[in-house]
């Protein structure tokens, strides 16, 4: 346990990814990535289109298998876990924010935020845990500024508001790491700034680590660390002094 607690959240060693492996049209998109992410880090992942950012994020999110190398999540080797074990690890340790907010239209805001808890069977009707999950979801929605939108369906919310719900959802099970794929890519500057500020706030208050894929140099400049991916290789990895006051 001590060892696990001390271990970095993410440790990649020589991780490779080849699509269509073994076929004539095989294509290696990640060539030996070494990467360590510590708890509480607020990191930007930048790079041109096609550099492999999304693939790397999917591997980190246990949505795709690496073709080679070793991936440790929270100190545990997850490289060759089966689908169920990967799903459980994803569920307990990771949060996701996608570019196109991706809420379920059949559920209102608070239900969308509670979904991860429902999946884990933590809403056992009137039980304590059910209440806890609902209270936590409500608290998160308040924290992202949606006090008045608990009962609203995604269709009734603006893009920025939907993304706030998605942020709340990614945090409801208190994950150690949130993976965000261009979380503001679809939003205007104002909404984009406030979402980013929210992520920063949760990072500072709760110590949640964030890995944020972004195209926007302005946003990257507000992170503590910037990793640049070019042609499937890490071309730069430097600490950064945030300039804007979040």
């Amino acid at each position, binding site marked *: 346990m001590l060892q696990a607690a001390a271990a970095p959240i993410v440790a990649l060693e020589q991780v490779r990814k080849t699509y269509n492996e073994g076929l004539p049209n095989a294509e290696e998109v990640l060539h030996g990535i070494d990467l360590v992410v510590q708890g509480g880090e607020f990191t930007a992942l930048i790079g041109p289109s096609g550099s492999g950012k*999304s693939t790397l994020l*999917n591997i980190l*999110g246990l*949505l*795709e298998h690496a073709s080679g190398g070793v991936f440790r999540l929270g100190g545990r080797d997850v490289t060759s876990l089966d*689908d*169920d074990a990967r*799903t*459980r690890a*994803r*569920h*307990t340790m990771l949060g*996701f924010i*996608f570019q196109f907010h*991706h*809420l*379920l*239209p*059949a*559920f209102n805001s608070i*239900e969308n935020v*509670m*979904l*991860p808890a*429902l*999946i*884990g*069977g933590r*809403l*056992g*009707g*009137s039980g304590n845990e*059910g209440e806890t*999950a*609902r209270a936590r979801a409500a608290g998160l929605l308040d924290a992202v500024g949606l006090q008045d939108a608990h009962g609203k369906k995604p269709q009734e919310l603006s893009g920025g508001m939907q993304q706030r719900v998605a942020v709340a*959802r990614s945090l409801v099970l208190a994950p150690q790491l949130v993976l965000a794929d261009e979380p503001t890519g679809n939003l205007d500057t104002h909404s984009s700034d406030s979402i980013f500020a929210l992520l920063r706030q949760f990072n500072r208050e709760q110590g949640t680590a964030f890995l944020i894929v972004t195209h926007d140099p302005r946003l990257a400049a507000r992170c503590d660390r910037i990793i640049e991916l070019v042609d499937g290789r890490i071309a730069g990895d430097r600490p950064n002094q945030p300039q804007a006051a979040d």
Partner: protein
Amino acid sequence: MGALGFEWTVALRFLREGRMQTALIIGGATVGVAVIFFITAVLVGVQSDLIRRVTGSQPHIILKPPEETVSPLIAATPGAPRVASVQARPQRLTTIDGWPVLARQTEATPGVVAIAAVASGSALAIKGDATRSIALLGTDLERYMRVVRLDDKLAQGVLRLEPGDALVGIELARDLGAALGDRFRVQSADGTSQVFLIRGILDLGTRELNRRYVYVDLRAAQSILGIPGRITNIDVAVGDIMRADHIAARLRAQSGQFIETWIQTNQQVFAAITNQNIMTLLIRVFVTIVVALGIASVLVVSVVQKRKEIGILRAIGATRAQMLRVFLLQGAIVGVAGALLGSGLGLLLVSIFSRILRSASGTPLFTLTFDAGLIVIVVVVSAVLGLIAAVLPARNAAHLDPAQAIRG
């Protein structure tokens, strides 16, 4: 949200979200179930009417003593020439040996619902100048009526057979010029005779029976026919008359008696009923397949439409098994909803058409019977059918690659 668990919650929400699709597929299942319900009710009604008319005054199965045969004294040896003339002998009135034991054994046979011991033979009915040849049947009326329904065949009088009472066919009464309460004499070939009072006049459905049948109590028939204490046949009623042959085969094996079933005496009717059953079974099977395909196709479309949502659910921690169950449940829910609505619609159709459709005799062709057991069966079968129909789409949902689904 939450009290139902993840799978139920999401399945119900997905169905509710798919409004039109869900309404259409539940509608399809409803119509299918109603059709099956209706066809079954009509078939049962029509067949029981037909069977009632055909087998009305006959037992389903009759046990008789084996016919007497003649065996040549010299057995045939292969290759050896043989000259023999074998003459069939005339049949005497034969009786069943040890019938009380056989009767009990027959009654205990699975599938048999009632039996009656009968002493029957031919005799003459005499009233004044009129003499008619009759079939005399002696039996315990109470038992006999459990084998053959006589109550709906009574034209006049009462169904009662005290010693000295007789029930006669309506044509015979006319031929003898006898009315209810009149007396007439029954005489056997060897001259034994007894006088009976006509208690009831029966319309047995066919001219032949109406002209010849006379029912008296067992003891009287035995003494007239010269077989005191013995009987000539055991009449049997079975629960499922379409299985009369199977039950007869069993009786034949265990009793060694000659067995005759209503099926042998009514080959054509039996064939017609069998064909009808096969046809309706085919219709039911095809309707079932159509409903299952309908459910499956709507769910397949639904999985495609919900690709992204399935991807999200997988990304935020839903397992493959959970996604599988979400879609299996949708199939089952649609099946159960269709079964309940379809049973209701089927009952409504039956109640409407039972007033419109009538048989030749003017009675309703079928009657509305509310069979809760049948509805339970329909609901369970439909739920299972929905589940099976959902297997393919559910597997698609479970094996969706979440990374691709979210990207797409």
